[in-house]
């Protein structure tokens, strides 16, 4: 229950106009800090919904696949350059951001992550790694402004942010593939 309150407070905090304005004024912070924090807020709040409607998750997200798909769709949608611009231009899109990232990405991620197999987990991370490298390359190499609200230099910074995250996830995948944790456990 504590987690729900933390998540809820985090969501409220992020929705405060000065906080939202500050985070959205810098492109990389908008995408790589505000948006993940919104997902985390949902992730923390998920426990409440899981306790309240266990049957719903059990029936509709039995194997975790619909949830992880929903999570991926929402995440990828918010990587479209236009989505970020639209969030700054249209109030409704901004509202959709504050609803979709916590409740349609954070909540299903938590419910699905414990249900899907480790192979599936790795596949999801691999897909996002590839997407991050592609987005990084796109944001760095694109000669024009992709977002009308942000300067090209911010776009390049965001691109490097994507690449850095991609590298981190690759390291994790390699580590995961090479190291067998049970070998280090005491009998």
């Amino acid at each position, binding site marked *: 229950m504590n987690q729900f309150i933390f998540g809820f407070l985090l969501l409220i905090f992020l929705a405060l106009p000065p906080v939202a304005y500050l985070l959205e004024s810098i492109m990389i912070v908008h995408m790589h800090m505000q948006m993940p924090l919104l997902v985390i807020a949902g992730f923390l709040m998920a426990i409440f919904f899981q306790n309240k409607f266990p049957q719903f998750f059990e029936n509709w997200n039995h194997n975790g*696949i*619909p949830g992880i798909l929903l999570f991926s769709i929402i995440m990828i949608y918010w990587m479209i350059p236009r989505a970020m611009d639209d969030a700054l231009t249209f109030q409704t899109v901004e509202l959709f951001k504050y609803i979709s990232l916590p409740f349609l990405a954070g909540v299903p991620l938590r419910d699905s992550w414990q249900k899907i197999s480790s192979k599936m987990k790795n596949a999801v991370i691999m897909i996002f790694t590839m997407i991050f490298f592609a987005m990084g390359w796109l944001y760095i190499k694109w000669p024009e402004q992709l977002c009308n609200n942000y300067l090209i230099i911010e776009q390049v910074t965001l691109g490097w942010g994507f690449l850095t995250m991609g590298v981190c996830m690759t390291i994790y995948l390699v580590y995961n593939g090479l190291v067998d944790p049970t070998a280090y456990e005491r009998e």
Partner: protein
Amino acid sequence: MIQKRQTGFAFLLVLLFGFSLFYVGTDGFKAYTAETARVYNLLEEKPALPEVILEDSNGREYPISEFEGNYLFITFMYTACVDECPLLEMNMGRVYDQIPSEYIGEDILFLSISFDPEQDDPPTLDHYKNHFQADGETWRMARINDQTELNSLLKTYGVTVIPDGEGDFAHNSAFYLVDEQGRLKDIMDYTDVDSAANRVNDVLANEEEE
């Protein structure tokens, strides 16, 4: 078994939702950046020019509606710009050169509008226009002194201008073609001079036939 079926159903539902989300969010998979969306929507809308007062490089002041009855070929720039605008204006000059001379000044006028009225006074504009061999008559450079009018024009055409606080601006660039009634006719890629010139010539030739 029921769970399996419901989960399968949920999977399809999520797919459908994702498809709709991307469809709506990109205007039917057409516009992935706000810039393409802007152009796409403007061409649907064909907005009319708002009423603005221009002050040109000769210091003359007149409303933009004075050009009604002529096509207008418009760009938005500022003279202190070092990267994009010189290219934009140079390419504008190359389009100008490709329009048959009988149309120039008769059916179509070229107009470069500065969004930096503080710096771009008539002498500055006059100096700038000479760089591009603009004659100041059939190709004019002008500023809009009233900030509200300027903003409304920029907003109508979806020109986003972000001042960097040091006298420079980040902005989007394009060629705008306005018809004789003062309504937006087309938005063209300013880096593709030949296509833009062909388009303008087509429009002007069609006009003559009618």
